[in-house]
C-alpha cells in the first residue's frame, strides 16, 4: 500500500512539476503566434485570458 501511495504521490508531483516547467519555458499564444506589431495589450483584460 505504501508503494502504491508513493507512486500516486510521485505521479501527481511530477505532473505539477512538468506543468510549471512548461509554463515557464513556453510563451503564451498571444505572444508566440502574433508579431510584435499585432500583440494585444494587457491580455488579461483584453479578449483573451491571462494565460492565452
Amino acid at each position: 500500500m505504501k508503494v502504491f501511495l508513493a507512486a500516486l504521490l510521485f505521479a501527481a508531483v511530477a505532473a505539477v512539476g512538468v506543468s510549471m516547467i512548461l509554463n515557464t519555458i513556453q510563451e503564451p499564444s498571444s505572444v508566440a503566434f502574433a508579431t510584435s506589431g499585432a500583440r494585444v495589450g494587457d491580455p488579461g483584460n483584453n479578449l483573451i485570458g491571462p494565460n492565452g
Partner: protein
Amino acid sequence: MPVSSSTLKALLPWTFCTALALLLVLAHPAAAQLSFKPTAEAVQEDKLLNALKEGDKITGRISIPDAMAASLIQPAGRDWRDFHRRKLPVIGGVAILGMLALLTIFLMVRGRVRVHQGFSGTSILRFASFERFTHWLTASCFVVLALSGLNISFGRILILPLFGPEAFATMSAYAKLAHDYLAFPFMMGLVIMFLIWVKDNVPRKLDLEWLKQGGGILFEGKHPPARRFNAGQKGIFWIVIVFGTLMSVSGWFLLFPYLPANVTVLQVWTVIHAVIAMLFIAAMLAHIYIGSIGMEGAFDAMGTGEVDLNWAKEHHSLWVEEEQAKGHAGSTPRPVAAE
C-alpha cells in the same frame, strides 16, 4: 437599298435606347458584370471542395508566426473528422466492449484460475519495492489517461447528456489538463519499466511450449514451466512497450502541435494516437482481469510483492528453482487467506 423615312422614324427610339445602354455599360463596367448574377453563378463551397483532389489545399498569405494558419481549406480534414465521429467509436466499441464480453464469458466458462496445490503458507518475493513503484506509477497514470482519453472520444455521446453542458465542460477541462501532464510520469514509468524488465522478457523457445499448453490457464491443473515471466506476461510487456511508445510519440506531437511538418501529418498522428489507445485499453483490461479476479493469488505479486510458494511453483516453476538455488525462496511464513 433605299430606306423610307417612316422606317427611320420607327428605328430612331431603338437606336437611341441602344446608344444610351452602351454608354452606361462603358461608363460603369461593374453594371455589366451584375448581369452575370454573381451570387448564383459564383463557385459554391461544395463544388470547390469536391473539385479539390486528395492532398490539395487552399492556402493564403499570413504575417503571423504560425505557418499552419496559412492553410485555409484542407479537404482531407473532412475524412479526419469523419474518422473521429464515425469510425473511431466503432473501433473503440468493438475493442473495449468486445474484450469485456470475452473476459466475462471466459470467467463464466473457466472460472477463476485456482492454486491447484492450495496455498502453502510460505511466500517468496516476486517484485521488489522499486519494481512495484514503477508498475503503479505507470498503471495509475494509464488509468487517468485512459479515462480522460475516452472522455474525449465518447464523452459528448455518453456523459454530456447525463451531466449537462456546464458540468461536462468543467470536468473535460480538468480531464484534459490531467491527460496532458500525467503523460510525462507515464512516459517516465514506461522507460524505467523497459530498463528493469527487458532482460526477463526476451522471447525464448520455452514460451512456445507455454503457449501450446494454454499457459496453464485454459486447462485445469496443467502448468507449463516458465521462468520469471511466462509468454503471456511477455506479451503484455511488449504490448505496453510498443503501444506505450507509439502513444508517447503521437502524444508528444499532440502536446506540441507545431512539431509536425503540417496539419496533415498532425492529423495522421491523432489517428494513430486514437486507434492505439483503444487497442491499448482493451489489452490492459485483459491484464487487469488476469492479475486480479481471473487468477487466485496473482494480485499479491504487485500488492505486497510476495506470492505464495505454491502459486509461484505452478506458474513460474523454473524461476522458483533459480531463486531457491540462490537461497532466496520459501523462507517467509505467509498467512493463508480464508476461502
